[in-house]
Structures are given as C-alpha cells and as structure tokens.
C-alpha cells in the first residue's frame, strides 16, 4: 500500500477483530464476534470488509461459496502510522516547536538511561 489512510471508527473496529484473531477470517466469524454486539446487519459488515479490501487493509480469497479475508496491514504498522501521524501533526509541525526546542524534549538514548541509573546509585551512596 502506498499511503495509509486513517480508518473511520467502524472500519477500525473490524480491523481490531481481524488483528486479534488468526487469519483467515470470514464475514460470519466477524459477524459473530462484533456484529451482534454492535447490532450491525450482515450487509453492513460485508460492505465494511469490502471497503477495507479497497483501501488495501485486507486481501480476500474466494473458496467455493465462502469468501475469506487476510490482513495486509499489521496492527503494529497501523498503530505506528496512526500514533506517529498524531505526533507529526501536533509535535513536530507544531507552531510551538520553536519554543519546544528551547527546552530539550528529545527522547533519551539507552546510553543516557544507563548513565542515569548509575547516577542514581551514586547519589544513593553519596
């Protein structure tokens, strides 16, 4: 997929079920796990799944009568995309960035952290 797009809530709910179960998934299984709870009709679930296929989040195969779905985007990748997107919008490109950079707001390296731990122990003794 070239460019991920943020999923609307309903489609995200479907993906959540897909991610938390072993592929392949069928519409019926999704319906059982999610549809009843949300009181969705089977048509709604089918159209949501097809839209996810269109967006490139799912891949579908047809075996005889039944259509099965496989995730194309992993949960981790999508999490990274969505969270990272938020960060990018509200941290990196923020107009407050100028001020933020005055203070160091950077992540620490492992080396820094080990040094800090050593420092704590030293302070303890000192």
């Amino acid at each position: 997929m070239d460019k991920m797009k943020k999923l609307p809530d309903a489609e995200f709910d479907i993906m959540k079920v897909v991610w938390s179960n072993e592929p392949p998934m069928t519409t019926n299984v999704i319906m059982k796990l999610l549809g009843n709870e949300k009181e969705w009709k089977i048509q709604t679930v089918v159209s949501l799944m097809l839209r996810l296929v269109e967006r490139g989040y799912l891949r579908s195969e047809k075996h005889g009568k039944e259509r099965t779905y496989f995730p194309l985007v992993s949960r981790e990748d999508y999490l990274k995309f969505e969270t990272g997107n938020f960060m990018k919008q509200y941290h990196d490109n923020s107009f407050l960035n100028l001020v933020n950079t005055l203070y160091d707001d950077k992540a620490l390296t492992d080396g820094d952290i080990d040094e800090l731990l050593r420092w704590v122990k030293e302070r303890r003794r000192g």
Partner: protein
Amino acid sequence: MQEFMITLLTCSAAMSILALMYMAVTPILAKRYSVKGRYYAWLIIVGGLIIPFRPHFSNAFVKVDVPSGTATPIIQIGNGTPVTIPAENAAFSPASLSISWWQIATAVWLGGMIIYLTYHAVKHYRFTKMTGRWSEKIIEERALVLLQNLKTEMDISKQINLYSCSSVGTPMMIGFVTPRILLPKTNIVQDELRFILKHELFHYKQKDLWYKCLILAATAVHWFNPVVYLMARAINVQCELSCDAEIVKSADADTRQYYSETIIGIVRYQSKLKTALSTNFYGGKKGMKKRIFSIMDMSRKKTGVAIICGVLLVTLGTGFVFAANVNASQGGDTPTETQATIAERFSIYEQYGMTYNQEKDLFIYDNKIVRYFNDTEAGEGYTADYTKFDYTDYNVAIDVVAVRDAAGKLTGLAPVSKEDFDLRTESFNELNNMQGDAQEDYNGVSSAENGNATEDSGIVEGGSGLSTEAGNPNEQDTALNEYSSYGVSYDGENKCWVYENKPIHYFSDGDYLTFSDYSEDAVNNGISLEVIRNTNGEIEKIVEVEYHG
C-alpha cells in the same frame, strides 16, 4: 478598547518579567522550600496573567514612564479644565485611523486566541479519541485491587478506570468527567505499578488537569508572548516534581532509589516509543537528573508560604505599573487630568518653593498665586498658564520660570521682574482686545498666549505673529529653533519659518511637536515637512510631505 489592549500588553510584559525572575530564582528556592509551595506560587502568576486587571491604586508609588504615544497635557490653572494636546494634528491623522489600528490589534489578538484554543481543543479531542481506540480496560485482578487500595488510602472516592493503551509511551491520567489512568503496553511489575498509580492519583488529587486548563487559558490570552510558553514548561516540571515529592515524602533512601528507577524505566520505554505526550515530561538527560535529584533529596523543607505570599505581593504590585500606565493614558485619551497627577508631576518644584494646592487647583510661590509658570526644558507638560484670568496685581500674583543649568539640570525657580510681569499683563490684554485679528498692532516680541493658542495647543501657531505657545515674554519666535541645524530658519522680515527658501505651512515631529502656519503666504506657497527620527529618538532628517489640511 485601546485602554484594554494597553492594560493587556502591560500585564503581559510585567508578568513576563515576574515569571522570568521566578524561573531564575527557582534553583535557589529549591534548596529551602518545598516543591509544593513553588508549584502553587506559579498559580498566582497564572492567575495574574489570565486576569489582566488589578485593583486600582490611584497614587502609584512607583512611577513608571509608559510611552503611550500621546502628548502630555498642558494645564490651565484656575478653571480646572485642563486642556489636552493631541499628539497628532487631528486634520493630519484622522482619529478614525488611529482607532482602527487598535481595532486591528484587538482583532489579531482575539483571532490568535481563538486559533490557539481551537488548535488545543482539536488536539485534545483527537488525542482522547486515539487513545480511546487503542485502549483496553485492564481486568487483571491484582492491578484493580491495588488501585482500589491506593484510592482508599488517599481518600479518593471518584470512580477511576484503568486502561492499557498501545498508543502512549508513559502512564498518564486523562479525562475531566471520567478520569482514567492509561498505562503503556510494557511490563510493569507490581511494585512499580504501585508507584505509578500513586503518582497518577496524586495528579488527580492535586487537580492538576484543572491547573493545566488554567495554564492553557493564560497561554491563550498571551499567545503572542513567548515567555508564557516557557512558563508553561516550567510549571509542568514543577507539577511532576510536586507529585514525586508527595510520593517519596518521609520515604527512606531505598524507596527513593526504587522510585527513581521506576521513572527511568518508563523513560526508557517511552524513548523507544518516541511518544512524548500529555501529563508527563522528560526533559532530556539534564531534566531527568534534576527530577531524580529532587526525588533523592531528603532534606527537610519549609512549606513555602513565604514564596506564595511574595509572588502574590509582586503580582498585585504590577498593579502599580498599571496605575501609572492608566494615568499616562488618561492624560492622553481624555481631557481630564486629576489634580493628584498634576500634583505629582509638579512635585519636583516643591523643593524650590512652588507648591500645588490640589483643592483650589492653584500653584503657590512666595505666598503668591502663580499666574504663569514655564519650564521650557522639561517639556510641554510643565507649563501652567492662566493669563486668561486677570490677575494683574504683582503683589498677589507672580510669574515664575524654572532655572536650569547648562546640563539641563533643574537648579531653582525664579520669579520674573515686575516689568516682565506687567508686559505679560499688557500683551495679554492686548490680545484680548484684538479678538482674533491678532496680526494688527502686534509687535511680535511678546509670546503671550491668546486663547486660541492655549486651547488647541500642540498646534503651535507661528509665523503669523502669534508665536510660541509657552515662551519667555522677551523671546522671538522660537518654535522651530531646535531644527535650525537641519535647514529650518526664521525669516524675521516675513515673520515666518522657512525651509529651502519656502515658507513652512505645516511641520510635524511626531510626538514632540506639531507646528502650522495659516498665514496666506504659508498656506498658498508653503511646504509641509515631517521630521524623521531614528529608533533612538534622534533626528535623522527632515522630509517634505503632502499635507491635506
């Protein structure tokens, strides 16, 4: 509107200085006072920023000269109706134009505030939504029991839910209505969880989310001021430190070390995730060191009531600045100047024997009523004149001039001689009789005011024979003497000021002086000039301008 904006800007500036000073002394205060006191003292500064108005002190102790872009008033003693000199000639810069500048400023300020608040509202909404998507309620028995125990211990009855959230890198508390604690998806052992939950619950107890709302309000009002962002940062640090302090209060060194290690562990996870968000901070290695230093610091501290009181006093004290400012702007905006400010302004002459009677609105010198007073060096505001009111008896009234040495330092006051006094009386009577046709029979030597010159002063009537507005009785027309080295000279024959051999019809030097000559020659053949000053207020050059009088 203008007054409000001036108040706001003054508040912004004064509180910025206070905030910066407070930030500067924080390391020193940290040695003696508890972090809690330091944290809550900030609240006063935040409050002072949100509410730009202060109790009004009618007599400012500290006189702060706030440049207000308006001229000082000339006052007329006796009738109690002071007259203002508008800084700019009304015809030259229409009042509507100057008002619209303030309107633009207000609009920009409001617009910025709305954008800022919208930005933060959207950010908060999107963040809440995102974390909601990726959160799962924690159902693990041990964690829930621990939370319940801590709540009981800390006397919190509100329902607080516990979630595990994949999109956060650090534990945090969000939600005003339904507070919930989000934990990052990392391995947290029971002992660590205890510290983390306690820390977050303290945020709830301290009402830190509301505090943060106030900070947001303050930064929104002063969005144009970079200092408020620094301040927000500094308060966030204090917020975390005060939570830390509560947790390790009366704890031994082992516990403190363990707590420090817990925090460092979270930072390690967060750094990996690169998700720095919301109620938590980790200000780089240096910031972390400070935080740990604070946790490990076991020395006893004073609560810091003194700090809170001190900051409160200074915050209220900025009201003095405002008071002085209001006085200054009152002088320019409205034609009323209080007796109190007149008294204050003229108090410098008290030591030389001239006193001001506030009740009667009169100056007294040598037991006589001061009919005319002039201190040319001090500027327009230091002239008092009531020649209009015919005090003609030299035994009752007196004319006084200030004496200054070569360096411009005030050295004393001098009453004018009886001759000079009578001359002023005479020329005043003459002017009165002339009733407008001032040019006739006027010898041009005296500089006594006619009613016109005093009333719309600031417009110095020159050339046409009615010369300077507040000069010595024996002086020539000196209105533009100051500019002689820039090519402006006085043509005694035609009784007008000239520049490049042309009569000057209009001459403007911003706030310093406005001069116009309405004699026929000057109106028809004259030129209009404007003085360009550099940022230091020094004259740069004189340029010709279009005058649509």
